[in-house]
């Protein structure tokens, strides 16, 4: 670098505090009370799910703790052991409150793991397709098209029928039905971003492909993806619940919310509403909370609707 000293008129930039786009988005997010409620509920649920073993009165997945002599008790009943079942028990004699918290945990584990895996795969595929274009793009997108031309529920249904039950299998099925969706979303926004001059500038500065893809392209395709991912987590929870309802989801001994609902479904008419209704409410609250958060994120992260 040459040593010529230059003394141009140094200009003062506006005296605003340096807030990152992230902080700005967070402030925007907080502007909706509904979304904040959603966020709080979501956080509480995640905490409950994480700390389930410590906060629940019973481990509903441990058979030796269950007794069918306590089954189908209405909310508020007392067990042989003298503890109270605040939300009643199910046909296996599980404490519904514990079952719901564990079910939530199961639902969240399945949905979040599946979404993250699908996201990672989809993102890598989508970015690669958009960045390199040409044949790679065509190839990846054909596979994506192919995947998307099968309805998710059916693919999951068939897959699980083939793979059999199990948490891991449900996750695999969810990843398989979701990744293409992310790939397409990422590619869509990455194609737009790729046209922007900062990508050309980065290449002009001699930065490697990997760096341009992951340092420049990726972060800028994230916002729409975050929105999609939040909504997809909610969808994944619902899909898992549906699959469990159809009898191809998680194993009966480790019920998720969906399976709890399905188990209780046959008891609805007989008046044992609590077996199905409470997990249903929990599921609903969980999905609504996530969707509320996702919705607000969508508004916050969409620059076009920003005032």
């Amino acid at each position, binding site marked *: 670098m040459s040593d010529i000293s230059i003394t141009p*008129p140094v*200009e003062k930039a*506006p005296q605003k505090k340096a807030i990152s786009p992230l902080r700005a988005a967070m402030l925007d997010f907080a*502007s909706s009370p509904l979304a904040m409620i959603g966020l709080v509920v979501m956080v509480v649920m995640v905490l409950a799910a994480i700390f389930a073993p410590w906060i629940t009165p019973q481990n509903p997945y441990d058979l030796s703790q269950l007794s069918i002599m306590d089954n189908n008790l209405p909310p508020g009943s007392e067990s042989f052991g003298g503890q109270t079942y605040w939300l009643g028990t199910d046909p296996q004699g599980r404490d519904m409150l514990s079952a719901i918290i564990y079910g939530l945990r199961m639902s969240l584990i399945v949905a979040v793991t599946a979404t993250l895996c699908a996201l990672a795969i989809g993102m890598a595929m989508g970015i690669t397709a958009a960045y390199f274009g040409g044949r790679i793009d065509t190839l990846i997108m054909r596979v994506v098209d192919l995947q998307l031309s099968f309805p998710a529920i059916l693919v999951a249904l068939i897959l699980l029928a083939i793979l059999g039950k199990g948490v891991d299998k449900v996750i695999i099925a969810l990843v398989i039905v979701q990744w293409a969706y992310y790939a397409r979303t990422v590619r869509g926004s990455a194609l737009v971003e790729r046209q922007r001059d900062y990508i050309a500038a980065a290449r002009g500065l001699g930065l490697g492909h990997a760096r341009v893809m992951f340092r420049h392209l990726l972060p800028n395709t994230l916002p729409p993806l975050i929105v999609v991912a939040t909504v997809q987590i909610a969808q994944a929870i619902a899909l898992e619940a549906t699959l469990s309802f159809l009898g191809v989801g998680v194993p009966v001994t480790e019920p998720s919310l969906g399976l709890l609902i399905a188990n209780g479904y046959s008891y609805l008419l007989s008046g044992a509403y609590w077996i199905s209704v409470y997990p249903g409410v929990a599921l609903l609250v969980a999905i609504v909370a996530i969707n509320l958060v996702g919705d607000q994120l969508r508004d916050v992260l969409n620059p076009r609707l920003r*005032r």
Partner: protein
Amino acid sequence: MTAVLQVENLKTHFFTRAGVVPAVDGVSFSVNRGEVMGLVGESGSGKTVTGFSIMGMVDKPGRIVGGRILYQGRDLANLREREWQAIRGRHIAMIFQDPMMTLNPVLKISTQMIEAVQAHVHISKQAARERCLATLARVGIPSPAERMDAYPHQFSGGMRQRVAIAIALLHDPEVIVADEPTTALDVTIQAQILAEVQKLAEGSGTALIWITHDLSVVSSLADNIAVMYAGRVVEQGRAATVLRHPAHPYTHGLIESIPSRNKRGVDLAQIPGMTPPLLDLPQGCAFRPRCPNATDACRADQPPREMPTGQMARCIHPMRESEVAQ
């Protein structure tokens, strides 16, 4: 000659979460029949908002908070939406900057023109169509009958802007507000549009408010010029006067920073600093922090004053004749 349109102390503010944005804050001017009035200013100075205020199309969170808009003596500022609809397009029409965006992409040109006719006069579709054809021919569209049923995307940018102009002309309005209609066009096409507009204005006696950030464009088109800065008109008067003898230091700086005015290889005369954000305007004259002539007296509000050369300027330290380099 009486003014067709007279804007008096117009104030249009936006009430945003971050605060009140005085996008237009006391703008006054008037246009006469057949005259072209150039409204010049840099980005964000409030030109478009002024134009929309005249059309009664300021959207939430914006509102006209003061002043009058007199159209042939009638105050429009407090009209209800229905009454505005009767005026828009018929008496006062508007043309927008980007010809690619002003026509609805999914509707045929004919649909968009005929609906504009039928919105104001109750005539048959056929009659409306005739009228549209005639108007398209006026703005220099070759074989309009064949092209009228096309969709906007089948037209080039220049052609689309002509269609937009034709739509504005459908009812021979008394006033046309043209918001940077040639900025997005190529030089040769811009010249064509300017030529057409010039002919039309002269022929029909329509008053034209030509909004632009490019002084060069209005210099050869406008009778009068108003220069806006941060929501206010800082200088206005006959075009020749304002350009030849700019009184306000901002106008002066603007003229001086046009490259072709300067010698090659020599630094351009430049206005230091940048436009202040509207949410955080300095007290008094908004140009004060960038002004070479500024004194403490500029901290007070500057009403428009008449200058010796005849124009009006909001400045107590106007440029002296000798400082205005030719």
